[in-house]
């Protein structure tokens, strides 16, 4: 019985593996249009401020990736980080907040990663003159690395 369970689990994992590997390789900013999202001067996504008018349909323009692969959890997280970057940045600076917790939840990451993310952000992102989208991608990379290590 134990053998059957283990075999089934391995089969399930092997079936999932290519999809996960494919999603890992996917750069949401380049392949799923997040990098091309338009932000107003103060960093608010045009797609967000337009919710009332366009019903909030998510503007994922998929250039080279299939629409399906752009619906994965990693891409959802990338979009969340980009759209709420202003809130995330302030919360990371303070060390706590609902958006920060939500990002960690999406990354299936323990809250123990927060000090590492905070330290990395202090070193490279906070205070930089990079654009909103670039800073969001930097935060995503820092958080993903900190979560893998924790």
């Amino acid at each position, binding site marked *: 019985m134990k053998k059957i369970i283990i075999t089934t689990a391995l089969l399930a994992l092997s079936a999932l593996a290519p999809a996960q590997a494919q999603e890992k390789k996917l750069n949401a900013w380049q392949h799923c249009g997040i990098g091309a999202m338009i932000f*107003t*001067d*103060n*960093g*608010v996504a045009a797609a*967000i*401020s*337009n*919710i*009332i*008018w*366009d*019903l*909030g*349909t*998510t503007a994922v323009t998929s250039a080279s990736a299939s629409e399906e692969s752009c619906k994965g959890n990693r891409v*959802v997280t990338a979009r*969340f980080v980009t*759209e*709420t970057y*202003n*809130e995330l*940045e*302030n919360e*990371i*600076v*303070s*060390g*706590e*907040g*609902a*958006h*920060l*917790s*939500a990002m*960690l*939840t*999406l990354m299936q990451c323990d809250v123990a990663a*927060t*000090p590492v993310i*905070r330290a990395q*952000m*202090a070193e490279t992102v*906070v*205070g930089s003159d990079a654009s909103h989208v670039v800073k969001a991608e930097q935060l995503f990379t820092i958080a993903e690395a900190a979560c893998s290590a924790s």
Partner: protein
Amino acid sequence: MKIKRNLFFAILLSSALQWPTSAHANTHAVTSSLHPWQTNMWQRLLHYTVDGTTSEIENSSFFLASNGRYDPKAEFDATLEAFQSSEQTEPDSHPICRFPARAIYLQQLGFSIASPESRCQAFNQWHGELQDNVLSLVYADGYLGNPASFYGHLLFKITAPNAAHDLLTNSLNFGARVPDKENPVVYILKGLIGGYGATYSSNHYYRYNLNYSEVEMRDLWQYQLNLNVEEKALLVAHAWEMLSTQYTYYFTNRNCAYHIARLLEVVLQERLVDEKDPFVLPISVFTALSMAKTQSGQPAIAQITRKPSRQARFREHFSTLPLSSKKAIEDYLATSDMQSIHALDFNESIQVFDVLFDYIEFRLIMEGDDAQLLQMKKTLQQSRITLRIASPAWPTPEQKAPPHTGHKPTLLRTQLGSNNLEGEFLQVDFRPAYYDLLSQGGGILKNSALSMLETAWRIDQHGSHLQKIDVLNIETTDTTASGLPGDQGIAWKLRIGKQRDTLTNLTPSNEFFAESGIGVGAEWSNITVYSMLTGRIQTPDAAESRFLLIPSVTVLVNWAGVKSVCQFSYPLRWQAMAYQRALKSQCGLSAFASQTMDVRLSIAHQVHTELSLGLSWYF
């Protein structure tokens, strides 16, 4: 044969599934003689009109029978057949997964139907863990930055117990499909005449929170529904079904409020809105909900919570700071030197950082990109990140009256009065929506007036007259501003319409006009004062005046349930003679106010004097 047998059981069972009766529920009475397709539940799941002849859902893909939109029985038969079909399909494309609420209802009737939970992965993923989550209706306060949002907005939301998960739950929005960069005038016109299609859409709640609360600075009121497990399952399944429906959008009565109310009605005894109502406003749904009962006979609302907007949060936090912290903020903004912030103790300093972050984001949204503000933000972040992780403790947010406690939106008022030039008169006022400076209760912008198409007819000894029509009237003063740079709070007004002047020697006059004013205001306890300078352009009056400049002072007092306002203005006409420049004084008060009525007394004097007493009915 199997269908017929099941129908027989369904008819028997329908008597056991009768809707609870109540004083308001006469439209829901189900007798054992009804077939399942004739029950209120089936009619509501398919959004048929009350007479049961046509579904308000317009896309044929929502119906499994070719004439399902017009034939509840045909749709019932087709649904049952599709649900019991053994034809193999992809799990999520099976009719049960497209119409899980119908499946739940048919299961309740005793039909042998697979459970949506057991085979519909996408649906399960969408609603998350229902055991822990609750369902809510969210009201976003009125917003004067977009005509479509003057009267507030509402969303259906799956609510998670903690704030982080709550941002990631799904929410349902309803609105018109409007092309990008649509001209606002075209938008309003097409919205009024049914020029747009409309649909529901689903998004993570963080997007709505960001849009409404953080960017548009609107308080969000969460009305948590008091549903049991079965009701939650049915409502969330019906919400899922709504994602594949299409409608024609009418700004006044087939809007977000109407259709989200229709969605909720599947778990309520009462109808929340009447399909014949010419105006259906979001606030009307919350008022009806506050009096409604669930199918299981419980009050429909379990709890109401307010989430202050970014602006409200910043101002409320600033107002609770000790003087030393306020002084530290003012010093920093004046000198860019953080010495006074660092001189505070740790708890006070992190409170100050918190307030300053909200203040800067608020100003960036209001003023757009500003190099100085961005630099300030960077400097503050670099300083705060060196301090240890901690959240400042804040007092409980200010308690405000929930939106549904204000008067109902539509007004009919009868006034009896006397004018020393024209004699006694009877006047009837009608306002489709929404409130004026004397309105009381929740759901309105404080010290403000907002109305569209407010009309007054007057009958006196000379005949009947259109006394006034306000195509649009907005007047507001912001007295909660912090006083910090960029947050001074202004008073402003915009009014377009036509009005008879019965207070000067220029009568009879009846000018079309547009006027706009700007000023400042302040508040002390229950007294609000604001002054304004208004410019007015009009069709020539009896003195051939086309342009006026009107300085004014307004005093509002709210005391012991009586609200009063006095407005003193001095209209300056370029061409007018001295006697036409008399001070104009208008005072009014509102007493015995409830959600459905109030009594109004008003007196006005310029060259002539007018006094009136009115009884208002709100509905």
